[in-house]
């Protein structure tokens, strides 16, 4: 029982990665379930065993990425470090994850942000990205409580962190960056720190 459950999860992960790439490359509407099944070398029927619809798969991909990134930020949150150092770590880890899973970031930028109608039911607001949002909120709250960060509206602080990170990986995706994205990490972290500090 247990073995097959693990392999089901692994299979789902495989589907997520492949579907994610296709969605990001060809667009959400131009990608069909048969396309995804074909790329995976599995039957359409079998794919439906994992996801009941394309929409369900699209939402699952977001939840999957949110969990992945949320866990990484949570690890940083739980470290006993000054807020400034945490910002540096956060930026570095985010860029690393984007490098390790470019398809997830592409998907976020090209599908999640561009096809909001697909996500408007059951994935609206922060519902599918709750883990990331929660961890960033906790991170900011603790920084303010410690007196390291300036107390301000959550949303301005939130986009001050997430905006630049998204921006950098977008530039990387467009092949505009001169250097490896990690090279920009320190300076970007410094900018974010200066923008948020008390």
């Amino acid at each position: 029982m247990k073995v097959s459950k693990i392999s089901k999860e692994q299979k789902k992960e495989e589907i997520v990665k492949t579907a994610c790439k296709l969605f990001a490359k060809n667009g959400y509407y131009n990608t069909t379930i048969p396309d995804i099944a074909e790329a995976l070398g599995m039957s359409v029927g079998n794919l439906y065993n994992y996801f009941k619809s394309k929409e369900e798969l699209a939402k699952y991909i977001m939840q999957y990425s949110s969990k992945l990134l949320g866990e990484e930020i949570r690890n940083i949150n739980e470290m006993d470090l000054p807020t400034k150092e945490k910002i540096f770590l956060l930026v570095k880890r985010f860029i690393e994850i984007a490098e390790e899973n470019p398809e997830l970031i592409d998907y976020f930028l090209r599908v999640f942000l561009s096809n909001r109608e697909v996500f408007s039911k059951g994935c609206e607001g922060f519902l599918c990205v709750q883990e990331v949002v929660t961890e960033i909120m906790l991170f900011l709250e603790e920084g303010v409580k410690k007196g390291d960060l300036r107390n301000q509206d959550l949303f301005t602080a939130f986009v001050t962190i997430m905006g630049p990170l998204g921006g950098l990986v977008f530039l990387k995706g467009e092949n505009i960056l001169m250097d490896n994205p990690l090279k920009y990490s320190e300076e970007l972290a410094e900018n974010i720190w200066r923008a948020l500090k008390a």
Partner: protein
Amino acid sequence: MKTLLWIQGLTCNGNTHSLLNAENPSFYDIFSKIKLLFHPAISSDEDLIKIIKDITQNKISLTFLVVEGSITKNKSFCRVGDFSIAEIIDQLKDKAEFIIAVGNCASFGNIPALYKENTNVVGLQYIFTEKKGLLPPNFKTKSGYPVINISGCPIHPAWFMQTILALYYEKPLILDAFNRPKEIYMYLPHDGCIRNEYFEWKEESEEFGHKEGCLFYNLGCKGPLTHAPCNKILWNRTSSKTRAGMPCLGCTEFNFPLRENYFETKKNIGIPEEVPLGVSKRAYITISGVAKSLRNERVKKKLEETD
């Protein structure tokens, strides 16, 4: 007959007023069962000093010593005859079966303990969170109980009457971490608050006295963080602060007067610094975010306009 002696330290008399409001049993009912030896606001002919002397000389047995108000050794702030209130308690502490601190002042020092002019103001066994009140931390009365704290500013009369009745009928009392009877203080004002639906969906009141909205996020309600049954045992059998649209101030807690702004929730980056008891900040943020995204249309309307 069981006896009761009520004495006062530094107090505004609030708990005495509550006592006079008691019902089931009423003030008169209870004192037909228990002999009231003396109460500063009621007794006129009795001589308190003589009563105290008779107790110390075992001529009168003392069942309940009830103390209202905070305690100081400094006679220029509070005296009973020639004695400071601390000296009176010292004389009586081993004679009483039970010592009951009524109100936050006697329990935890409360507002008088913030005096700058007299830094020697304490509760009977506590000073705020610390067990550094007048009586030592391991102090117990003859009955084996520590000082029984009935906290509140003021107490609800039923809290006092229930406690006295339980002890009168020799029922065991379970006490919480601050020596308050569990039966009363295991509830939160949040339990039974009619605004729970709004709390759940994170729909907040912006103004006092409105029927709609929860008072937690904008108006400083301490209902989810305070031990008191205010929405279970209503005030005057009618209402409570939160029912009326006034935030709970947390008046039953040891740290009640240490807060800075009672009508505001301290927030960092929009997140309440203190979250409801029993939940982590992470869980609170997650659940609030989800509740907000789900939008409940009913709680966005005026009650009169709902279906």
